[in-house]
């Protein structure tokens, strides 16, 4: 199977993008939206999304097969990594979850179709209708496709035409998803455009922003800020800057019967999308006093990563990235030789496939990703939070492994500190569909409300 040249992102890399091309595409999207998308109701959109998701979970679905066959070359991820990532996403994309999402964001599932009232609206004898923007521009970042997938889902729910600008090298999986939508409903597919160009291409982005009434952007803080500055004042904006995540494992959890499962779950978080997502852990903080629990955890995690490498190999990385890992390892090699009680490290033999660094220093360390994980012993949550203070404003998810009776105390401390998502270790890179991205509502930035006070 080959993908037809339907989207701008399908064009060969040497094809020259021009502002005029972007403008034409946007105008066509708006026309198509009026004709095909604006007239659709929520149940029919949900049916399309759910059917497509179900297709993606079938082993012989041609688009899935294409994504798995060509994905490694395009994305650098191994086939099992892509398969797991796709399964995790599309399993979430059910009718039940989509309806839950609409209720969470808009109060009822019919908000986008008719004036209706939520419970609180009824109390104030009011009804309201939500309307999506005519054209949303999405600036996505990195190579983990979930952001682009979710953007497409939200845009379809709000019946908006969409222009998705992917980061260099990040377009492949979203592109295949888009073709799968086009395959089942060409008219819907005709309301979405996708292109790939280097971020900060001012002329192209200016042409795009001039046509949008809403723009979302993910990426580094600087890139997001640059987009915000480039927008005309009338355009609504939702920016998602860079985030980091970490895990927290309690003493009780590690001494309980689930200890082995926690190690497996931690490895799952490191392996998912090769640790390249904002929700991937950089560090596991492990409660420890003098029992050596953290050191033991680090060793077990290394063994688990080694075991999993056979069936779920890390993807291919550039020589530069490998050099970065090698250089980082070399530092810990020296430190481990110098002060073995403070630093230990475990490295995949003859490759950079995985690395575990045990470091007694509790200060948060930004991993070089690609399955390079830190394990740090801490006395308690307070010490972990002091260590993570430098990334306090950048923290997304904290993965937790604790006994049930410890949870309530823990989650409050992390929430007050500033984490926006708390989940079990093992689920860090697998948020629910209703996940409030970076602690913010998902659709509030997209829709415009019309209140009716009869």
């Amino acid at each position, binding site marked *: 199977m080959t993908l037809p040249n339907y989207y701008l992102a399908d064009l060969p890399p040497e094809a020259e993008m021009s502002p005029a091309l972007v403008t034409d595409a946007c105008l066509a999207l708006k026309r198509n939206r009026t004709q095909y998308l604006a007239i659709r109701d929520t149940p029919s959109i949900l049916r399309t999304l759910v059917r497509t998701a179900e297709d993606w979970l079938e082993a012989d679905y041609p688009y899935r097969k294409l994504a798995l066959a060509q994905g490694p070359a395009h994305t*650098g991820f191994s086939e099992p990594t892509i398969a797991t990532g796709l399964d995790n996403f599309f399993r979430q994309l059910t009718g039940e979850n989509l309806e839950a999402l609409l209720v969470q964001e808009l109060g009822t599932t019919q908000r986008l179709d008719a004036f209706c009232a939520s419970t609180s609206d009824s109390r104030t004898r009011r009804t309201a209708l939500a309307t999506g923007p005519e054209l949303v521009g999405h600036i996505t970042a990195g*190579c983990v496709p979930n952001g682009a997938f979710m953007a497409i889902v939200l845009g379809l729910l709000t019946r908006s035409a969409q222009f998705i600008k992917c980061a260099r090298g990040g377009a492949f999986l979203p592109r295949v998803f888009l073709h799968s939508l086009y395959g089942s409903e060409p008219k819907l597919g005709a309301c979405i455009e996708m292109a790939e160009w280097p971020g900060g291409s001012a002329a192209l982005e200016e042409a795009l922003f001039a046509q949008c009434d809403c723009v979302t952007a993910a990426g580094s803080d600087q890139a997001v800020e640059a987009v915000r500055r480039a927008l005309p004042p009338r355009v609504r904006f939702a920016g998602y800057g860079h*985030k980091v995540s970490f895990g927290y494992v309690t003493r009780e959890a590690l001494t309980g019967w689930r200890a082995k499962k926690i190690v497996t779950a931690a490895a799952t978080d490191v392996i998912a999308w090769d640790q390249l997502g*904002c929700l991937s852990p950089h560090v596991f903080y492990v409660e420890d006093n003098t029992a050596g629990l953290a050191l033991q955890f680090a060793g077990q995690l290394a063994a688990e990563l080694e075991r999993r490498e056979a069936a779920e190999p890390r993807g291919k*990385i550039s*020589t530069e990235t490998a050099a970065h890992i090698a250089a980082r390892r070399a530092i810990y*090699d*020296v430190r481990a*030789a110098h002060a073995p009680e403070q630093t230990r490290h475990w490295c995949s033999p003859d490759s950079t496939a995985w690395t575990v660094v045990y470091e007694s220093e509790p200060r948060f360390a930004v991993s070089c990703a690609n399955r390079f994980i830190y394990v740090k012993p801490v006395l308690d949550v307070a010490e972990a939070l002091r260590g993570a203070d430098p990334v306090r404003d950048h923290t997304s998810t904290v993965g937790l492994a604790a006994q049930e009776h410890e949870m309530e105390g823990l989650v409050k401390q992390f929430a007050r500190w500033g984490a926006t998502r708390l989940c079990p270790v093992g689920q860090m890179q697998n948020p629910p569909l209703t996940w409030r991205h970076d602690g913010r509502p998902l659709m509030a930035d997209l829709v415009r409300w019309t209140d009716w006070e009869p």
Partner: protein
Amino acid sequence: MTNPSKFEDHSRRLLAFIERGSGLDETEFSASATELFALQFAHVAPYRRLCEARRVTPDSLPGWRQIPAMPTTAFKELELTSLAPAERTAVFHSSGTTGHLPSRHFHNARSLAVYEASLLSWFERHIAPAALVGRDSVEPHMERSAASISGAVTLSQESRFVRTSSVGSWGSKESRPAILCLAPPPEQAPHSSLVHMFAAVSREFGSQASRFLATVAPDNSWSLDFAAALAALRHAEQAAQPPVLLGTAFMFVHLLDALAQDGLSITLPPGSRVMETGGYKGRSREVPKAELHALLTSRLSIPRTHLVCEYGMSELSSQAYDRVAGSPTILSPLSSLFSFPPWARAVVISPETGREVAEGETGLLRIFDLANVRSVMAIQTEDLAVRRGEGFELLGRASHSESRGCSLLA
């Protein structure tokens, strides 16, 4: 107290090698390297700990290529020297970004003498004006370079390295060039190994008109004295005396930007040359090498053949150059082939496997520098290079900022 007599023996032998100018064959290099390794293993405690952790000791060393390399970053954290604190008379710092610990390379008078002998000798071979040393002396090096590229390296190390002249005999006093250093003088930058090098070559090879053309600003950055630079360049132009310009890439950018701002060009006389080294680290706008070189040619009339790139660092005592001034382009205008002197060898290591890469492949540069007597001889850099024959093509520092994911902080 360290064992100075054995280090002294090594230094003396190395100085004799350098003085002799006939290079080292594999046996000599290997013997010297393993001997120095044993000394450093015994007398540089943090290095010994690394070797022991890797289970490499002088008794178990299979060959010099297996000598454990110390990452450059370790020079920031550890005192990697066999010199006791009281013996240290100088320390060179890496020019890291502000707020970060610099690398430290400690010296005493004797190790500085070795550093100077090493740098002077190889500098002279690559930067010396051909008119003064004669064409014949240049050719063996060119032949080596050409042979390396074709993959047919037939000349032995011995025959490749032919000394042109002894240190300090570069022409008569009158015919010496002005060496114009786009750097602050040593008294302002006592911890810069590069400035120390510039001072040494100015002293050895430069005329009275040689000078340092920058100052150290309060924030420790280097600030070009453009008026002085312009005057020196104008003087060279009018007197038809070709100068030698030494500087880092970012200082050349400052000079070129200042010239461009005033719409000035200088027609430096034939034989003028440039030695350019180092990166930018945010201290000027970044200019691709080809563009920098094109600007040097257009603004200063220095042809590409007389633009020599140097590769060095504070953790080393020897440097690599990518051409002999005046020799034709080696690889292509965009990349060039660097080579160290015979007493320092570069190998390119696969970051994945830690083993040497095959010819033409990319990896991390590791240098074995016999002139690093009192610190550690085997240095693991973070620079990416392509293995090409006996030399290497430099690709630059492994980027820490680019990531395929979105999860890296700046």
